[in-house]
């Protein structure tokens, strides 16, 4: 490789496009590694409980699932709005997503944990249920913190149509948390018969 080619390669590696590409790959590698944690929890659920499921409130499960799906919709809108340079709509949609995230946390940790007729130490169903929902809720809580940062920066006008990688990353993280719940919901609430 001659000096000119080396200089071109160096230029390419410091270009915004290349940085964005590596950022995206890095984020997805993180998702992949985190998937192993959640995948392990799913396998544990079926290993310990088999074709039985914890005794849970069905209506609450459906409500929190719907709330999380709705939050993904608003997160998507927030990302679309900032990519078009509409800061006001971005802030509004981020705020709605954040509030829905808090609602999900209140539903799972505030109500489901309180109303479940078993504790974390009450056999396999307690271990499985609290570990799965706890680990997921921790991720939702982290996502809520990210959204709060987006909201603060959005209000300060730090994002624009040309500069919003942080929004894309936080949005993808939020959707990933939703994606995990898509598998946790049937595993915890729908598959199998209730543990006697």
């Amino acid at each position: 490789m001659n000096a000119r080619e080396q200089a071109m390669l160096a230029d390419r590696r410091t270009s915004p496009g290349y940085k964005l590409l590596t950022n995206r790959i890095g984020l997805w590698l993180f998702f992949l590694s985190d998937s192993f944690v959640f995948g392990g929890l799913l396998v544990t659920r079926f290993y310990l409980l088999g074709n039985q499921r914890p005794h849970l409130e069905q209506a609450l499960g459906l409500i929190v699932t719907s709330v999380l799906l709705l939050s993904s919709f608003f997160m998507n809108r927030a990302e679309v709005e900032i990519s078009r340079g509409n800061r006001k709509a971005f802030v509004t949609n981020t705020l709605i997503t954040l509030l829905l995230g808090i609602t999900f946390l209140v539903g799972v940790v505030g109500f489901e944990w309180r109303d479940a007729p078993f504790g974390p130490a009450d056999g396999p169903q307690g271990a499985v249920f609290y570990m799965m929902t706890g680990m997921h809720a921790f991720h939702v809580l982290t996502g809520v913190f990210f959204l709060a940062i987006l909201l603060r920066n959005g209000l300060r006008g730090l994002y624009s149509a040309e500069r919003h990688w942080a929004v894309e990353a936080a949005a993808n993280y939020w959707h990933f948390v939703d994606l995990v719940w898509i598998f946790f919901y049937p595993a915890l609430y729908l598959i199998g018969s209730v543990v006697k």
Partner: protein
Amino acid sequence: MKQERINEIRRGGLVFAVLALLTALEYLLGTNAVPPALLWLIALSKAGLVAWFFMHIFRVFRSEGGH
């Protein structure tokens, strides 16, 4: 530009509607003891929609956007 934004928001709304419909179907089937394979199939479809439309999995190896 404006039309593109409207199209993207419309697409997001449509994806959400399909996800909501699949969730309702999942709930109805799940509370009526159907084979678990069917519930996994619905979950996989929902996950695919989220990964494709909301997470933009197709642009992981692209540098479009320039931000």
